[in-house]
């Protein structure tokens, strides 16, 4: 007589509470609580509400400067990055020189230099008056020139991460270096670069605060102007902090969502 070996059915162990607690995004809860507390303050306290409304006037400028600068920095960074990995000694060295130049100088100093020295110098060269270019435009030019160099490094890393074999495969099919770059390497590289580009976008959003030194009326500058007459330092700077924190949080969650989608889509 054979014994019927009934195999015990093994269930995966249920995830216990501990595992759920470990994985819960507590950090998000804490940040949201802080934001929530501030929002309540703004709703119930007229002083907070006034300051909030004042700073709100600078928001469109912050967003506008961020968006325009990022788009142009992407384009400029792409070309710089391609120059960086170019076979041409001249192009490569020009790109490296530029990138090292930018990376070797503090951003605040670069903003001054570009806005008050480089742009007026170029304006004069083209026969324009010194004040032909608005301060906001100068701020955007400065951010594009600075962030182009950072983004170029992202492109370079993205391109170099694609194996040499892909370029060889494209070339062996008779495609030129440029065609292979455009149709084979860059589409793959861009996908890998999304997280790094997202970080640069968030960094750029924060760094727009630096152009307040030019008098561009974005949220930091508006706050400073407001404080200089109201002397409400605590309320103003807490709310300003809240603005940046909310924006970077929204942006970072948005980017995570886009990355997840890009991964599924591929």
């Amino acid at each position, binding site marked *: 007589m054979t014994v019927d070996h009934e195999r015990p059915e093994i269930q995966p162990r249920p995830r216990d509470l501990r595992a759920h607690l470990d994985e819960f995004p507590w950090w998000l809860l804490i940040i949201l609580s802080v934001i929530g507390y501030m929002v309540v303050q703004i709703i119930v306290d007229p002083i907070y509400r006034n300051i909030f409304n004042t700073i709100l006037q600078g928001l469109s400028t912050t967003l506008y400067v961020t968006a325009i600068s990022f788009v142009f920095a992407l384009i400029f960074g792409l070309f710089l990055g391609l120059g960086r990995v170019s076979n041409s000694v001249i192009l490569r060295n020009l790109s490296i020189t530029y990138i090292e130049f930018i990376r070797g100088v503090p951003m605040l100093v670069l903003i001054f230099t570009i806005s008050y020295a480089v742009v007026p110098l170029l304006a004069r060269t083209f026969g324009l008056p010194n004040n032909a270019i608005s301060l906001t435009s100068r701020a955007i030019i400065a951010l594009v020139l600075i962030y182009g160099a950072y983004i170029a490094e992202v492109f370079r890393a993205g391109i170099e991460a694609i*194996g040499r*074999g*892909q370029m*060889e*495969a*494209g*070339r*062996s*099919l*008779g*495609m*030129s270096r440029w*065609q292979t770059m455009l*149709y*084979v390497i860059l*589409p*793959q590289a861009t*996908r890998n670069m999304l997280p790094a580009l997202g970080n640069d976008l968030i960094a750029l959003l924060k760094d727009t605060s630096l152009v307040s030194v030019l008098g561009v009326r974005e949220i930091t500058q508006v706050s400073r102007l407001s404080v200089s007459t109201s002397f409400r330092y605590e309320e103003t700077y807490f709310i300003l902090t809240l603005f940046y924190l909310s924006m970077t949080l929204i942006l970072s969650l948005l980017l995570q969502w886009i990355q997840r989608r890009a991964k599924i889509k*591929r």
Partner: protein
Amino acid sequence: MVATSVDPMIRIENVSKFYGHFRALDQVSLDVQAGEVLMIVGPSGSGKSTLLRCINHLEVPDAGRIVVDGILVDNDEKHINAVRAEVGMVFQRFELFPHLTVIDNICLAQQKVRRRSRAESQTIARALLEKVGIPEQAQKYPEQLSGGQQQRVAIARALAMQPKIMLFDEPTSALDPEMIKEVLDVMLALAHEGMTMVVVSHEMGFARNAAHRVAFMDQGRIVEQGPPDKIFGTPQHDRTQLFLSRILH
């Protein structure tokens, strides 16, 4: 091979290649006739892949000259593109484009290099997928295919350019054993159609069934060459014998 007055399809003359001080190729000379299937065997580091890659200028020789179908392979971009248009290449690691579907992999260069319309290139691509036995995989992405299927797509991609010569760089060495045959069968069919082929591989079955000539390389030189029976049956050089005794049992 019967000596003819016709120029060979590939002529390699005294080609040398260095990596630093390492001599990868040492004055190699070799002719490949139209319709010939040449197999190159040898231990790793013997220069066989380097020699293959010199033919379509993926490696640039330090000395010597290579003429492919009457075109001198030098640094002139026009010459390089003309040669690459006639020479298809299959890589060990397939090198399919992972962001494109199988059919788009086969169509890309047709459209960008041969300037074929989308419809025309797709018709050609489908015919080639039929030929390599995987017509049903057209809309999939490379990572969804097995290694053997990927390599067959890579062969179809190269064939879509209607090359006169096909180069195979260890086409089966990255494959699981059960997938090797399906790739070799496609190569065998190509050989029987009269394609000029240079194959770097240790597949002895393929050598016996399809190769007209086997060249044994060691330390950057062609040590000996001849019909497969002769090279595998009665190798003349010690190094050939030693190498063969290691890969044949």
